[in-house]
């Protein structure tokens, strides 16, 4: 079994690892390295499994480069599930021709907002570079000449929601750009004990919006005025689920100023806010072939140009 993948572009499908998570889970690591392709595979396999409605499956949890299934082993023996999963994996193959019925969503963020700024300054002693902000540091380690160039790269292309978790509603987002353009930043040296809710953060290769206040180790870049979790289900977008993000969503983080931040926050407060979003059938093949051209099309669908 190949041990290291490095950061090179994948040229072949890596060998998946099938493993028991105790007697109640099957855990499948499709690859050690993150890539859009591997996430598409995780989604294709778990979607297929969901459609099959196999008795004994209690949870289907797609993740970034892996997925996890919880089962009742009385109804479904883990080995029987693994056999089925291997067969589905073969059918799905390299996801050629796979279509994803999803939606494109506009997610406004205020970069360098006062709340995350106050937080990151408070935890400077836990950071790689106590003399820079998280954004300045991340721009530098990714080889950007300026903070603004870095922000442009971050907010210039849309993202795929590749996993929900850690805590309810927190989306992991991976940018729809070629591997050589992927931004990667270390997590804090020691995690913070506090992060404001709705903070826009980045760690490893993933952008997130913190759904609730709490501990965290991702670099802090900004804040969204909008919730991703609403336990009270007051807002229209939360009527069916307390959690807004869905795996496979395509999110476009859009930079906003303080004025728009305050206005949107007030709409949330009044209960009138609704996310701007459009139905979309996503073709991974096209994204892998020419991501930038496809992204233009995706944004055109969202913003109607």
């Amino acid at each position, binding site marked *: 079994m190949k*041990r290291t993948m490095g950061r090179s572009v994948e040229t072949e499908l890596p060998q998946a690892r099938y493993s028991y*998570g105790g007697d109640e889970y099957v855990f499948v690591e499709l690859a050690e390295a993150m890539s859009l392709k591997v996430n598409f595979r995780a989604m294709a396999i778990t979607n297929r499994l969901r459609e099959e409605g196999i008795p004994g499956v209690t949870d289907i949890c797609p993740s970034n480069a892996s997925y996890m299934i919880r089962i009742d082993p009385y109804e479904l023996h883990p080995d029987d599930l693994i056999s089925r999963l291997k067969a589905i994996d073969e059918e799905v193959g390299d996801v050629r021709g796979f279509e994803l019925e999803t939606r494109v969503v506009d997610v406004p963020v205020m970069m360098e907002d006062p709340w995350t700024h106050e937080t990151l300054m408070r935890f400077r002693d836990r950071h790689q570079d106590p003399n820079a902000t998280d954004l300045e540091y991340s721009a530098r380690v990714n080889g950007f000449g300026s903070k603004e160039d870095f922000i442009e790269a971050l907010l210039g292309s849309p993202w795929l929601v590749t996993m929900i978790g850690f805590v309810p509603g927190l989306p992991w987002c991976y940018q729809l750009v070629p591997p050589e353009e992927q931004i990667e930043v270390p997590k804090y040296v020691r995690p913070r004990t506090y992060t404001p809710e709705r903070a826009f953060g980045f760690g*490893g290769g993933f952008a997130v919006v913190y759904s609730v206040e709490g501990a965290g180790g991702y670099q802090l870049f900004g804040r969204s005025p909008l919730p991703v979790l609403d336990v009270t289900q007051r807002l229209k977008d939360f009527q069916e689920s307390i959690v807004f993000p869905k795996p496979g969503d395509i999110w476009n983080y859009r930079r906003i100023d303080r004025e728009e931040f305050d206005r949107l926050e007030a709409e949330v407060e009044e209960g009138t806010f609704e996310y701007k979003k459009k139905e979309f059938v996503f073709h991974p093949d096209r994204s892998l072939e020419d991501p930038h051209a496809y992204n233009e099309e995706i944004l055109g669908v969202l913003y109607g140009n």
Partner: protein
Amino acid sequence: MGIRVRQPGLLTTVQDTGRFGEYAIGMPPSGAMDVFSYQVGNYLVGNEDGAAGLEMTYLGPELEFTEDAVIAITGAEMPPKINGEVAPAWEVIAVESGDVLSFDYLGSGARSYLAVAGGIDVPIFMHSRSTYTLIGLGGLEGRALQEADELEVGEGGDRSDRVGKAVDEDHVPAYSKETELRVIIGLASYRLTEESMEEFLSTTWTVTPDADRVGYRYKGGELKFVEREQPAGAGADPANVVDFGYPIGSIQVPGGVEPIVLMNDAVTGGGYATIGTVISADRDRLAQTKTNDKTRFRSVDLDEALKAREERRQQMVQIQQALS
């Protein structure tokens, strides 16, 4: 109305079997940590499977009944008292309106369970009454009980004929300060060096003060990860992986020190390498360990884990039949 909280104890929450099927949105199952004790409590008072009870951690609450009730206390050795008089555990007892249930200091174990005929009636949230305090849902207002709270008890009908029924002594677990937990090695265990995996399985670990419904943290050794160039998306630390899902019972070792076993209110995923999973049959006993207790992990295969699961189920069936 049914129960008035005079003192809440250290951490008393409403729990049932848990909120399953919501992992994909990042929702852990919650639910009773020691399923055996919780479930046997329901058998004693004649409740349906899944009726909600109270989970009482380390230091018990003081509860006043505002109507007659039929109850049972199971789990950790935390001797119950009715109006100051010692009452039996693992046995059905009758209380009258005005009676006060309190608990003596904790002996062995960590968590006791109160089952009430009819069940604790709080609103069902996403098909469960279990409390998940992190985001404040389920249970009573999504939080641990507080002084002056009032809990409703569900309609159970007259169960006074059950009073005096008790669990056979052979089935009452003894909780020791030294526990062996069976583990299926796997998940991202390839990240640990062979020597470190051996060390993990041969070390006697000590439960740290960081031991709660989210997870149990242990100290006692240091483990090393296989050197590699970190793969894309994983982050710089060798303990880091591309963020993935964490099973309940899974063991992770952030930074190579202090393994953590994730429990019912755990984070559902993250970027630390997991090395194995404590089997379901042994998580009841894990939930009865506490700070400074000793724990060893023993590697078993799936067959042994499934056999242990079946034995535990058989035992519960036997107990239920003996009590019906």
